[in-house]
């Protein structure tokens, strides 16, 4: 017997817990965190339940079924065109009214649906109690309470979903508007009855009155006369109410949502302000907010540097101790040379240099992300970001860029216009990711001191700001205004933090080690066939003459394009040691790291840029960064040499 197939989509407002539920159901690892707009593309996973193969679809969070933002387009197109068997509308119990506004729209679309009333723990903390039965009755929709992060109610949700599908989900009844609007919806629905529509007629009529650009365009193609009718009716409503027709429709829908919310929920006033409230006040404080932000970032790098340095030392002693064993096993012959010099050196260098910094970094960054601080940082930096033609929300992908540029590039989709996405994507590629941080902390930090490493981060921020401003000059336009929900602070959920960190680490390991082994072998063979020297020599006018680096760095910079930590790992392989002092002067370390920090996006980032912005723009970004790096690196070398701050 073949299993029956079902399609269930998760839809709802941003940051309500859709992806947590998705991960629980499918065992996959969608990005979760405490800020609105993480999921930008739909994701699919399957599960087997009671003889069904169920496709679960995680959709981007949206506040309305409009088509202004990419998230809205993705989610609406899926629900409207793919017609899933059921939509699970995930609702944040702590912001019921706004969430119900979206639920009402799903009902208008006549989508079969059930509600997952999520985050009831958060709602309880805020003193909100919801009468589930009453809510279900009011809407005519089944409601399942959940605390997704703890897995509570997930099984019941799935059970209810299948039960509703099996029973043949009763299409939920739609809400009614004021009589003068209802009458016009009726007239428009009648007119629409004459043409073949892919949407329900009533929904189409309402969307026309709401001024939905896409529906308007589609109707215009089918029958321009009906659009004319709609325009006339909209004008009539506008005359009656004194507000534009879309405003009237949205207001009335919100009124219904508000009425239901008030009827089903009970809000007990909190006497003591919650800890989260206090934290919120302090972290967006007019004066305190900024030093706190700087302290948080300095603290993060400090902790990572100390932890990383400590672990690195231990691992170093541990792993290099194996070299004699290798010599005993293979003797001092070419085979040992290839295995130890080509593979093991790279693997060990990666374990001792990269991992000690990357693990704590991912962990801390994720805790920060899941606490809800990023939204506060976005609020604080709004004015600054405007100077680059962006708004505060762009600070979030920028921050994520410190972890890895690739998801950060995709994360730029939270920006509203194409221009802003490109601007944000460009600055994101300049942010030193975790891989570059291993070079900054592992080389400059370890050998020159943390203050020099922090100097590099500061230089980086200045460059980001100046280039952002410059890019804004090239791509002028009015920056969009910031409109962002501020989520409540949350205590990061321990198990989720560990899981998400592990997942990111796993991705890193899966890509990093094979690449390192491959590169190590290639380099060994290049060495055997005497190819290293010609290549290094070819690059020496730039590397040696202009940047003042040892010739050997030319090859490492080429391999670094694959992954940035390779620059250091391969340098260690070539030198046969991680004691870089033997080959580089302090000034050379600084310049080398500066170059690595900026010189070109790694291949994965370039690929992400091509996907988001097209290959032309990706090529321009890459080229620009190479030119920038060569200029800045050469200048830094000369200035620092004159100032005599670092030994050379």
């Amino acid at each position, binding site marked *: 017997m073949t299993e029956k197939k079902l399609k269930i989509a998760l839809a709802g407002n941003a940051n309500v817990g859709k992806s947590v539920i998705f991960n629980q159901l499918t065992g996959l690892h969608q990005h979760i965190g405490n800020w609105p707009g993480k999921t930008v593309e739909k994701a699919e996973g399957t599960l087997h339940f009671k003889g069904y193969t169920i496709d679960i679809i995680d959709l981007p969070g949206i*506040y309305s079924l409009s088509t202004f933002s990419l998230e809205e387009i993705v989610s609406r197109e899926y629900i409207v065109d793919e017609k899933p068997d059921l939509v699970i509308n995930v609702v944040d119990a702590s912001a019921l009214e706004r969430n119900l506004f979206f639920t009402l729209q799903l009902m208008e679309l006549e989508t079969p649906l059930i509600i997952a009333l999520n985050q009831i723990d958060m709602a309880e903390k805020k003193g909100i109690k919801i009468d589930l039965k009453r809510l279900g009755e009011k809407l005519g929709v089944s409601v399942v309470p959940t605390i997704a992060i703890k897995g509570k109610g997930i099984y019941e949700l799935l059970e209810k979903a299948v039960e509703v599908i099996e029973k043949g989900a009763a299409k939920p009844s739609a809400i009614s508007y004021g009589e003068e609007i209802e009458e016009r919806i009726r007239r428009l629905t009648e007119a629409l009855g004459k043409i073949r529509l892919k949407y329900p007629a009533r929904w189409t009529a309402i969307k026309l009155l709401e*001024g939905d650009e896409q529906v308007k365009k589609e109707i215009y193609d089918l029958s321009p006369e009906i659009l004319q009718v709609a325009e006339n009716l909209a004008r009539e409503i506008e005359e009656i109410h004194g*507000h534009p027709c879309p405003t009237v429709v949205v207001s009335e829908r919100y009124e219904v949502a508000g009425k239901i919310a008030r009827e089903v929920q009970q*809000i007990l006033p909190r006497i003591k302000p919650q800890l989260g409230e206090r934290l919120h006040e302090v972290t967006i404080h007019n004066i305190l907010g900024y030093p706190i932000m700087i302290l948080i970032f300095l603290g993060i790098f400090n902790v990572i540097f100390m932890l990383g340095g400590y672990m690195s030392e231990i691992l170093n002693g541990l792993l290099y101790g194996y070299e004699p064993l290798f010599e005993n096993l293979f003797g001092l012959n070419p085979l040992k040379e290839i295995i130890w010099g080509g593979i093991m050196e790279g693997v060990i260098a990666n374990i001792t240099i990269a991992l000690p910094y990357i693990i704590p970094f991912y962990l801390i960054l994720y805790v920060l992300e899941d606490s809800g601080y990023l939204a506060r940082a976005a*609020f604080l930096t709004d004015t600054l970001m405007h100077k680059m033609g962006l708004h*505060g929300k762009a600070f979030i992908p920028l921050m994520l860029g410190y972890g890895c540029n690739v998801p950060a590039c995709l994360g730029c989709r939270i920006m509203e216009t194409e221009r802003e996405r490109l601007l944000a994507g460009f600055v994101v590629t300049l942010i030193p990711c975790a891989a570059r941080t291993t070079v900054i902390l592992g080389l400059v930090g370890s050998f020159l001191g943390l203050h020099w490493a922090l100097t590099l981060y500061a230089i980086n921020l200045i460059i980001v700001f100046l280039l952002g401003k410059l890019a804004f000059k090239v791509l002028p336009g009015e920056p969009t205004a910031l*409109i*962002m929900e501020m989520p409540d602070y949350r205590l990061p959920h321990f198990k989720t933090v560990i899981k998400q960190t592990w997942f990111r680490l796993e991705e890193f390991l899966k890509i990093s080690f094979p690449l390192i082994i491959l590169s190590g072998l290639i380099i060994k063979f290049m060495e055997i066939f005497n190819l290293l020297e010609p290549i290094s020599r070819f690059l020496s006018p730039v590397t040696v003459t202009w940047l003042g680096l040892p010739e050997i760095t030319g090859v490492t910079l080429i391999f670094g394009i694959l992954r940035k930590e390779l620059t250091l790992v391969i340098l260690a392989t070539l030198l046969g040691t991680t004691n870089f002092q033997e080959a580089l002067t302090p000034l050379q370390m600084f310049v080398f790291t500066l170059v690595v920090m900026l010189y070109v996006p790694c291949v994965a980032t370039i690929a992400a840029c091509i996907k988001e912005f097209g290959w032309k723009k990706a090529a321009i970004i890459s080229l620009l960064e190479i030119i920038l790096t060569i200029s800045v690196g050469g200048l830094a070398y000369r200035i620092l040499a004159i100032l005599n701050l670092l030994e050379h």
Partner: protein
Amino acid sequence: MLTLEVVEMELPLTALREGESGVITSIRASFGWGKGGGYGLQKRLMDMGLTPGTKITVVKSAPFHGPIEINVRGYRLAIGRGMAEKILVEVQK
């Protein structure tokens, strides 16, 4: 006896101080059926609950032309100053 005079004033949201409340009267930007640039953002604001007649409270008004944080329909929303200037509210003083 003391008489309290109630004066209603229409002000941009940016004129409210932290802790003050007002009722939205309108969002002043090109709207309607034309495809104006501000339409998307304005619709977004309404979709997030800022419809005429809604009560909002200013929680935070950031300095240096920074954004404004309001409480609306039981949640917190940050709005850029440029946009907040276009939101008109009625205040009882």
